Protein backbone atom coordinates (compact mmCIF):
# COMPACT_ATOMS: atom_id res chain seq x y z
CA UNK A 1 0.00 0.00 0.00
CA UNK A 2 1.70 3.14 -1.22
CA UNK A 3 1.01 6.83 -1.51
CA UNK A 4 3.08 9.64 -2.92
CA UNK A 5 4.16 12.50 -0.67
CA UNK A 6 1.87 14.84 -2.62
CA UNK A 7 -1.11 12.54 -2.12
CA UNK A 8 -0.42 12.32 1.62
CA UNK A 9 -0.10 16.09 2.02
CA UNK A 10 -3.20 16.70 -0.12
CA UNK A 11 -5.11 14.29 2.13
CA UNK A 12 -3.82 16.08 5.23
CA UNK A 13 -4.96 19.42 3.76
CA UNK A 14 -8.44 18.18 2.87
CA UNK A 15 -9.21 15.55 5.47
CA UNK A 16 -7.01 16.99 8.22
CA UNK A 17 -7.32 20.76 8.22
CA UNK A 18 -10.45 20.95 6.05
CA UNK A 19 -12.25 18.05 7.71
CA UNK A 20 -11.50 19.45 11.17
CA UNK A 21 -12.93 22.86 10.22
CA UNK A 22 -16.12 21.29 8.88
CA UNK A 23 -16.50 19.15 12.00
CA UNK A 24 -15.85 22.16 14.24
CA UNK A 25 -18.77 24.03 12.67
CA UNK A 26 -21.25 21.64 14.29
CA UNK A 27 -20.16 22.65 17.79
CA UNK A 28 -19.77 26.34 16.95
CA UNK A 29 -23.19 26.59 15.32
CA UNK A 30 -24.92 24.85 18.24
CA UNK A 31 -23.28 27.10 20.84
CA UNK A 32 -23.74 30.35 18.89
CA UNK A 33 -27.36 29.45 18.18
CA UNK A 34 -27.73 28.85 21.91
CA UNK A 35 -26.39 32.36 22.55
CA UNK A 36 -28.81 33.74 19.94
CA UNK A 37 -31.84 32.26 21.67
CA UNK A 38 -31.43 33.38 25.29
CA UNK A 39 -35.17 33.13 25.89
CA UNK A 40 -35.08 29.39 25.10
CA UNK A 41 -31.58 28.43 26.26
CA UNK A 42 -29.75 28.35 29.55
CA UNK A 43 -27.05 31.05 29.78
CA UNK A 44 -23.42 29.98 29.40
CA UNK A 45 -21.60 29.25 32.64
CA UNK A 46 -18.16 30.81 33.05
CA UNK A 47 -16.53 27.42 32.29
CA UNK A 48 -18.62 27.04 29.13
CA UNK A 49 -17.74 30.59 28.16
CA UNK A 50 -14.01 29.93 28.48
CA UNK A 51 -14.38 26.64 26.62
CA UNK A 52 -16.29 28.24 23.71
CA UNK A 53 -13.76 31.07 23.48
CA UNK A 54 -10.90 28.55 23.23
CA UNK A 55 -12.93 26.46 20.77
CA UNK A 56 -13.50 29.43 18.43
CA UNK A 57 -9.85 30.53 18.60
CA UNK A 58 -8.62 27.00 17.79
CA UNK A 59 -11.21 26.80 15.01
CA UNK A 60 -9.88 30.04 13.49
CA UNK A 61 -6.31 28.69 13.65
CA UNK A 62 -7.38 25.45 11.94
CA UNK A 63 -9.26 27.43 9.26
CA UNK A 64 -6.12 29.48 8.55
CA UNK A 65 -4.13 26.22 8.41
CA UNK A 66 -6.57 24.85 5.83
CA UNK A 67 -6.39 27.80 3.43
CA UNK A 68 -2.64 28.39 3.81
CA UNK A 69 -1.74 24.72 3.28
CA UNK A 70 -4.09 24.65 0.31
CA UNK A 71 -2.84 27.83 -1.36
CA UNK A 72 0.88 27.44 -0.73
CA UNK A 73 1.47 23.68 -0.65
CA UNK A 74 -1.19 21.77 -2.60
CA UNK A 75 -2.35 24.38 -5.13
CA UNK A 76 1.13 24.85 -6.69
CA UNK A 77 1.22 21.09 -7.40
CA UNK A 78 -2.32 21.25 -8.83
CA UNK A 79 -1.54 24.16 -11.18
CA UNK A 80 1.99 23.07 -12.17
CA UNK A 81 2.61 23.67 -15.89
CA UNK A 82 4.01 20.76 -17.94
CA UNK A 83 6.81 21.44 -20.37
CA UNK A 84 6.02 21.28 -24.11
CA UNK A 85 7.36 17.74 -24.47
CA UNK A 86 5.11 16.30 -21.74
CA UNK A 87 2.09 14.44 -23.07
CA UNK A 88 1.10 12.52 -19.95
CA UNK A 89 -0.72 14.96 -17.66
CA UNK A 90 -1.10 12.54 -14.73
CA UNK A 91 1.04 14.80 -12.52
CA UNK A 92 -0.52 18.02 -13.87
CA UNK A 93 -4.05 18.02 -12.47
CA UNK A 94 -5.21 21.40 -13.77
CA UNK A 95 -3.87 20.76 -17.28
CA UNK A 96 -5.42 17.31 -17.27
CA UNK A 97 -8.83 18.79 -16.42
CA UNK A 98 -8.84 21.69 -18.90
CA UNK A 99 -7.49 19.51 -21.73
CA UNK A 100 -10.83 17.72 -21.89
CA UNK A 101 -14.08 19.66 -22.49
CA UNK A 102 -16.01 17.15 -20.35
CA UNK A 103 -13.81 17.85 -17.30
CA UNK A 104 -12.79 21.50 -17.89
CA UNK A 105 -15.69 22.74 -15.72
CA UNK A 106 -14.13 21.10 -12.68
CA UNK A 107 -11.35 23.66 -12.96
CA UNK A 108 -13.13 26.62 -14.59
CA UNK A 109 -16.03 26.54 -12.15
CA UNK A 110 -15.03 24.18 -9.35
CA UNK A 111 -11.47 25.20 -8.55
CA UNK A 112 -12.01 28.87 -9.48
CA UNK A 113 -14.86 29.06 -6.94
CA UNK A 114 -13.23 26.93 -4.26
CA UNK A 115 -9.87 28.68 -4.23
CA UNK A 116 -11.46 32.04 -3.44
CA UNK A 117 -14.56 31.30 -1.37
CA UNK A 118 -12.50 29.17 1.05
CA UNK A 119 -10.84 32.36 2.35
CA UNK A 120 -14.18 33.61 3.70
CA UNK A 121 -13.94 30.91 6.39
CA UNK A 122 -10.84 32.03 8.36
CA UNK A 123 -11.76 35.71 7.98
CA UNK A 124 -15.30 35.14 9.28
CA UNK A 125 -14.30 32.76 12.09
CA UNK A 126 -11.51 35.08 13.25
CA UNK A 127 -14.10 37.87 13.51
CA UNK A 128 -16.53 35.57 15.36
CA UNK A 129 -13.80 34.53 17.81
CA UNK A 130 -12.83 38.18 18.38
CA UNK A 131 -16.42 39.35 18.96
CA UNK A 132 -17.08 36.47 21.35
CA UNK A 133 -13.82 37.16 23.19
CA UNK A 134 -14.74 40.85 23.57
CA UNK A 135 -18.42 40.41 24.47
CA UNK A 136 -18.44 36.95 26.04
CA UNK A 137 -21.78 35.97 27.48
CA UNK A 138 -22.93 39.57 26.90
CA UNK A 139 -23.23 38.69 23.22
CA UNK A 140 -26.67 37.34 24.15
CA UNK A 141 -27.71 40.90 25.10
CA UNK A 142 -26.85 42.38 21.70
CA UNK A 143 -29.54 41.02 19.37
CA UNK A 144 -28.22 42.55 16.13
CA UNK A 145 -24.61 41.58 16.82
CA UNK A 146 -25.42 38.00 17.82
CA UNK A 147 -27.63 37.52 14.73
CA UNK A 148 -24.88 38.91 12.49
CA UNK A 149 -22.32 36.65 14.15
CA UNK A 150 -24.62 33.66 13.57
CA UNK A 151 -25.13 34.71 9.92
CA UNK A 152 -21.35 34.95 9.39
CA UNK A 153 -20.88 31.52 10.99
CA UNK A 154 -23.55 29.99 8.73
CA UNK A 155 -22.01 31.72 5.69
CA UNK A 156 -18.55 30.44 6.67
CA UNK A 157 -19.98 26.92 7.05
CA UNK A 158 -21.51 27.23 3.58
CA UNK A 159 -18.16 28.44 2.17
CA UNK A 160 -16.30 25.59 3.89
CA UNK A 161 -18.84 23.13 2.49
CA UNK A 162 -18.33 24.46 -1.05
CA UNK A 163 -14.54 24.36 -0.71
CA UNK A 164 -14.47 20.92 0.90
CA UNK A 165 -16.94 19.29 -1.47
CA UNK A 166 -15.40 20.74 -4.62
CA UNK A 167 -11.91 19.92 -3.38
CA UNK A 168 -12.81 16.29 -2.82
CA UNK A 169 -14.59 15.97 -6.17
CA UNK A 170 -11.80 17.70 -8.12
CA UNK A 171 -9.20 15.48 -6.47
CA UNK A 172 -11.29 12.48 -7.46
CA UNK A 173 -11.38 13.62 -11.11
CA UNK A 174 -7.72 14.67 -11.28
CA UNK A 175 -5.74 13.64 -8.21
CA UNK A 176 -2.70 15.63 -7.19
CA UNK A 177 0.12 13.15 -7.68
CA UNK A 178 3.88 12.97 -7.79
CA UNK A 179 6.82 13.17 -5.46
CA UNK A 180 8.49 10.42 -3.49
CA UNK A 181 6.53 7.22 -2.91
CA UNK A 182 5.86 6.22 0.68
CA UNK A 183 5.06 2.62 1.50
CA UNK A 184 2.34 2.59 4.17
CA UNK A 185 2.18 -1.19 4.59
CA UNK A 186 3.30 -4.33 2.83
CA UNK A 187 6.53 -4.78 0.92
CA UNK A 188 7.96 -3.05 -2.11
CA UNK A 189 7.83 -5.30 -5.17
Amino acid sequence: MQMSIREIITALHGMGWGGLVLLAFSGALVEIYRLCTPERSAPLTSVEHKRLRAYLIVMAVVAWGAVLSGAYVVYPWYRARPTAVVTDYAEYAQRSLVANPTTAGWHNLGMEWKEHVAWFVPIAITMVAYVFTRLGADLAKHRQVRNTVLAFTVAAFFAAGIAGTLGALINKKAPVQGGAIVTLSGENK
Partner: protein
Amino acid sequence: MNADRTSSESNIPSGSIAAALVAAAIGCFAVSALALLADAYASLGHLMTFYAPTGPLSGVTTTAIGIWLGSWAVLSWSWQRRSIPLGKISALALLLLGLGFLLSFPPLGEFLQGR
Protein backbone atom coordinates in the same frame (compact mmCIF):
# COMPACT_ATOMS: atom_id res chain seq x y z
CA MET B 1 -15.38 39.93 40.83
CA ASN B 2 -17.64 38.26 38.27
CA ALA B 3 -20.10 41.13 38.62
CA ASP B 4 -17.33 43.66 37.97
CA ARG B 5 -16.18 41.77 34.92
CA THR B 6 -19.70 41.48 33.49
CA SER B 7 -20.24 45.16 34.07
CA SER B 8 -17.03 46.15 32.32
CA GLU B 9 -17.84 43.85 29.37
CA SER B 10 -21.29 45.43 29.03
CA ASN B 11 -19.64 48.82 28.68
CA ILE B 12 -17.50 47.83 25.70
CA PRO B 13 -18.02 50.57 23.08
CA SER B 14 -20.01 49.32 20.10
CA GLY B 15 -17.34 50.83 17.82
CA SER B 16 -14.82 48.02 18.32
CA ILE B 17 -17.47 45.37 17.62
CA ALA B 18 -18.86 47.28 14.63
CA ALA B 19 -15.32 47.61 13.23
CA ALA B 20 -14.74 43.84 13.47
CA LEU B 21 -18.05 43.06 11.73
CA VAL B 22 -17.61 45.53 8.86
CA ALA B 23 -13.92 44.72 8.36
CA ALA B 24 -14.63 40.97 8.05
CA ALA B 25 -17.28 41.72 5.43
CA ILE B 26 -14.87 44.07 3.60
CA GLY B 27 -12.22 41.31 3.67
CA CYS B 28 -14.58 38.72 2.15
CA PHE B 29 -15.79 41.20 -0.47
CA ALA B 30 -12.16 42.14 -1.28
CA VAL B 31 -11.23 38.49 -1.96
CA SER B 32 -13.97 38.20 -4.59
CA ALA B 33 -13.57 41.69 -6.08
CA LEU B 34 -9.79 41.36 -6.44
CA ALA B 35 -10.12 37.85 -7.92
CA LEU B 36 -12.60 39.18 -10.48
CA LEU B 37 -10.36 42.14 -11.39
CA ALA B 38 -7.22 39.97 -11.58
CA ASP B 39 -9.08 37.65 -13.94
CA ALA B 40 -10.43 40.50 -16.06
CA TYR B 41 -7.15 42.43 -16.40
CA ALA B 42 -4.07 40.36 -17.25
CA SER B 43 -1.74 43.14 -16.08
CA LEU B 44 -3.36 43.15 -12.64
CA GLY B 45 -3.25 39.34 -12.57
CA HIS B 46 0.50 39.55 -13.26
CA LEU B 47 0.89 42.19 -10.54
CA MET B 48 -0.99 39.95 -8.11
CA THR B 49 1.44 37.08 -8.61
CA PHE B 50 3.34 37.51 -5.34
CA TYR B 51 4.42 33.85 -5.30
CA ALA B 52 4.79 32.32 -8.76
CA PRO B 53 3.83 28.69 -7.94
CA THR B 54 0.49 29.87 -6.49
CA GLY B 55 -0.08 32.50 -9.20
CA PRO B 56 -2.45 35.48 -8.83
CA LEU B 57 -4.24 33.75 -5.93
CA SER B 58 -1.24 34.64 -3.73
CA GLY B 59 -1.57 38.36 -4.36
CA VAL B 60 -5.37 38.41 -4.37
CA THR B 61 -5.63 36.79 -0.96
CA THR B 62 -2.63 38.57 0.59
CA THR B 63 -3.97 41.96 -0.57
CA ALA B 64 -7.48 41.09 0.64
CA ILE B 65 -6.09 40.11 4.06
CA GLY B 66 -4.21 43.43 4.13
CA ILE B 67 -7.43 45.29 3.27
CA TRP B 68 -9.32 43.34 5.96
CA LEU B 69 -6.76 43.96 8.72
CA GLY B 70 -6.11 47.54 7.58
CA SER B 71 -9.80 48.45 7.50
CA TRP B 72 -10.24 46.75 10.89
CA ALA B 73 -7.44 48.85 12.40
CA VAL B 74 -8.66 52.10 10.81
CA LEU B 75 -12.32 51.53 11.74
CA SER B 76 -11.41 50.45 15.28
CA TRP B 77 -9.39 53.64 15.71
CA SER B 78 -12.06 55.87 14.13
CA TRP B 79 -14.96 54.33 16.01
CA GLN B 80 -13.30 53.82 19.38
CA ARG B 81 -15.38 55.20 22.23
CA ARG B 82 -18.19 56.00 19.78
CA SER B 83 -21.62 54.50 19.90
CA ILE B 84 -22.24 53.05 16.45
CA PRO B 85 -25.75 52.07 15.21
CA LEU B 86 -25.23 48.30 15.21
CA GLY B 87 -28.41 47.62 13.23
CA LYS B 88 -27.17 49.58 10.20
CA ILE B 89 -23.64 48.21 10.60
CA SER B 90 -24.93 44.63 10.71
CA ALA B 91 -27.01 45.23 7.56
CA LEU B 92 -23.98 46.72 5.78
CA ALA B 93 -21.78 43.79 6.85
CA LEU B 94 -24.32 41.22 5.64
CA LEU B 95 -24.79 43.11 2.35
CA LEU B 96 -21.03 43.10 1.69
CA LEU B 97 -20.77 39.43 2.66
CA GLY B 98 -23.64 38.56 0.30
CA LEU B 99 -22.06 40.55 -2.54
CA GLY B 100 -18.75 38.83 -1.84
CA PHE B 101 -20.43 35.43 -2.15
CA LEU B 102 -22.16 36.42 -5.40
CA LEU B 103 -18.97 37.77 -6.97
CA SER B 104 -17.05 34.64 -5.98
CA PHE B 105 -19.31 32.51 -8.21
CA PRO B 106 -17.32 32.13 -11.48
CA PRO B 107 -20.28 32.20 -13.93
CA LEU B 108 -21.29 35.63 -12.55
CA GLY B 109 -17.71 36.87 -12.91
CA GLU B 110 -17.63 35.71 -16.53
CA PHE B 111 -20.99 37.40 -17.16
CA LEU B 112 -19.69 40.69 -15.71
CA GLN B 113 -16.61 40.42 -17.93
CA GLY B 114 -18.86 39.90 -20.97
CA ARG B 115 -17.54 36.42 -21.76
